[in-house]
């Protein structure tokens, strides 16, 4: 096989039939999902028996569950699933030619001013863009505080007790079909453990874990904060991520012990061929706080509902979600809050934008159990339609079994006003500049919570997207 050091022109046809277990280069299973594939994955990762059994059991659950009939259009998905490789050895995932990367992605990189090396990394081409130096010094700081921030595989290997204690306790394999799939074939993701009372000032960035697993199809992340701990985790990127993978199904489990505080910020801008189905959930104990900050800008179809299960008295959960759907995209997002203890509070703020024939859907659940006395929940979902063909839907589910609770829901749908556009134009802004300003104003309450780099890139992305949006 011809072989360049950095960039390998990987013709997938070459590997379609059978294993190629070439130590130096590529390892991947056959397409499709079956017991052999699962066994190979576990063997390759050298996992303990219990994990293999867990995976196999999950596989059976996956096979037994039907494809969901709600949410986005998954009709084409089964065909896709029969063709994909459920496991590719990490360092081989990313080898691909720069020539294969679609023009529009390259143009976006240019316009966003992304350095060339990073462009290649985002497109999965060539050498990984690393911030090795920063990472190492932070690693030392974390180690001194007893903080663990590892790959999920290392989490299992090096911290088996903590791992096993919490793994799959937040999202069991049987939770839903794709959680079961992930449970069977998970690979890549983060393992985070913050000890009692430790307040991390610097955010943990998935980006720091300099390996290709952060872009894995079946990421599994497990995060545990002990009593009184505080941390912020950031992952994803606003720049478009090009992947020939057409399916991404992650599971993120978060365990917050009492009095802890945690924020999970994620932004995705997957290319338009991607199905992005993710289960994200946090268990929140007494007086603990969970904040999800979720930005969905890309993918063909995303179904994602970050959740907070408020299990201890005084727990608080909030979900802030921005969704942007352009031509050919469907964002089916929102959040779930479950009040299972008294004096718990929650808030969901969802801002969605639909452009062209894009469709954005808010889907949310607010459930208050009997006994969750004095719970308060508020949901605000706002949708902005840019064009006449744009579409938005809202599916709020509100189930309140406790009389002594306060639950509120507000929803607005608006179009960009002609008077607003005219007002801005009369001050010298072009129609596109005016649109971009109005759209940025629309998402401002959530965007202002984003880390600066994301906010800046997000602004630029909106400007780009608004070009050619009018008419």
């Amino acid at each position, binding site marked *: 096989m011809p072989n360049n050091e950095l960039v390998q022109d990987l013709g997938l046809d070459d590997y379609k039939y059978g294993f190629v277990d070439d130590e130096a280069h590529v390892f991947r299973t056959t397409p499709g999902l079956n017991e052999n594939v699962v066994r190979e994955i576990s063997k390759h990762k050298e996992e303990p028996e219990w994990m293999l059994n867990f995976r196999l059991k999950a596989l059976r659950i996956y096979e037994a569950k039907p494809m969901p009939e709600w949410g986005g259009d998954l009709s084409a998905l089964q065909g896709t699933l029969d063709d994909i490789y459920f496991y590719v050895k990490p360092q081989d995932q990313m080898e691909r030619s720069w020539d294969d990367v679609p023009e529009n992605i390259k143009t976006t990189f240019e316009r966003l001013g992304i350095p060339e090396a990073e462009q290649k990394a985002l497109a999965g081409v060539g050498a990984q863009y690393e911030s090795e130096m920063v990472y190492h010094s932070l690693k030392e700081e974390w180690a001194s505080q007893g903080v663990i921030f590892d790959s999920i595989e290392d989490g299992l290997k090096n911290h088996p007790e903590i791992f096993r204690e919490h793994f799959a306790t937040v999202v069991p394999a049987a939770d839903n079909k794709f959680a079961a799939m992930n449970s069977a074939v998970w690979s890549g993701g983060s393992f985070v453990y913050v000890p009692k009372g430790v307040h991390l000032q610097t955010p943990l960035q998935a980006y720091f874990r300099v390996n290709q697993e952060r872009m894995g199809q079946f990421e599994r992340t497990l995060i545990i904060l002990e009593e009184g701990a505080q941390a912020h985790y950031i992952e994803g990127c606003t720049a478009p991520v090009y992947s020939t993978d057409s399916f991404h199904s992650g599971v993120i489990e978060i365990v917050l012990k009492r009095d802890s505080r945690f924020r999970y910020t994620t932004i995705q801008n997957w290319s338009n061929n991607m199905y992005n189905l993710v289960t994200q959930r946090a268990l929140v104990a007494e007086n603990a706080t969970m904040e999800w900050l979720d930005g969905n800008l890309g993918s063909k179809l995303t179904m994602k509902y970050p959740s907070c299960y408020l299990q201890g008295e005084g727990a608080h959960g909030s979900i802030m979600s921005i969704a942007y759907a352009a031509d050919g995209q469907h964002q089916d997002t929102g959040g779930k809050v479950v009040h299972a203890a008294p004096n718990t509070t929650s808030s969901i703020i969802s801002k969605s934008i639909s452009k062209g024939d894009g469709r954005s859907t808010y889907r949310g659940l607010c459930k208050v159990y009997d006994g969750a006395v004095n719970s308060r929940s508020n949901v605000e979902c706002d949708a902005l339609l840019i064009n006449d063909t744009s579409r938005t839907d809202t599916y709020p589910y509100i189930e309140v079994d406790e009389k002594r609770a306060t639950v509120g829901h507000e929803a607005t749908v608006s179009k960009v006003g002609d008077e607003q556009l005219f007002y801005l134009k*009369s*001050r*010298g802004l072009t*129609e596109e500049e005016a649109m971009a300003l*109005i759209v940025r*104003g629309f998402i401002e309450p959530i965007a202002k919570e984003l880390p600066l780099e994301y906010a800046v890139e997000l602004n630029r992305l909106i400007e780009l997207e608004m070009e050619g949006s009018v008419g």
Partner: protein
Amino acid sequence: MTNTYIFDVNNLCAKVIQEDVDILKGVSLQLRAGEIHAIMGPNGSGKSTLAKVLVGHPAYEVTSGDVTCRGTSILDMEPDERALAGLFLAFQYPVEIPGVSIANFLRTALQARLGPDEELDLFDFQDELMDRMKMLDMEPSFAERSVNDGFSGGEKKRNEILQMAVLRPTVALMDETDSGLDIDALQIVAHGINTLRQEDPEMTILLITHYQRLLDHIQPDVVHVMVDGRLVRSGGPELALELEDQGYAEWKCRHSGT
């Protein structure tokens, strides 16, 4: 021979798009640089329509006539192009832009006036903005509020003047800026306009006003009376006092049905 008028409206007729009847029925008006003109008239005379047509509001269509700014016709220009050519309208009912701060909005508008490779100096901008706000007796924190969002009528009008003060237009059209203002607010607005004129004596202003009282504070050079889509009389500042005294009845009688 060069046109000595900075702004020249020539027999302008206009109507609402898809309607049949012209609202503006042949308005002619010439402004020299640095002049202040006032247009007064009864409700429904077309005063606000005139202002909107001049800045290119998409709801209206010009059926005949021309408008030039510094000798160049502006009727084919988009509203943003007219703004860059130096035209400004202080709206009667400014619209809200939630989530966009006044500072951000003005910075974007100023940046729009620079060339593609030029970058607005943020520190200079900040200083300028604070200075202009002080001149208009506005709290600095006001700059962080969303444009017109939750503003009182007086705050909206003052915000229009602030924009004028920052953007420094060549020709400023002011559509009933005094309506809805109490005496204090009116004085602040008038003071703002007068200060801008002192700073730039070449700034040309067209005040559209319903009541004479604004003209107590801002001395116009010429006063026009607009009735039923036309300017029916022009005169000096004393004309405004005459109207105050006698009302519009005479003009309406004389010119209705034409």
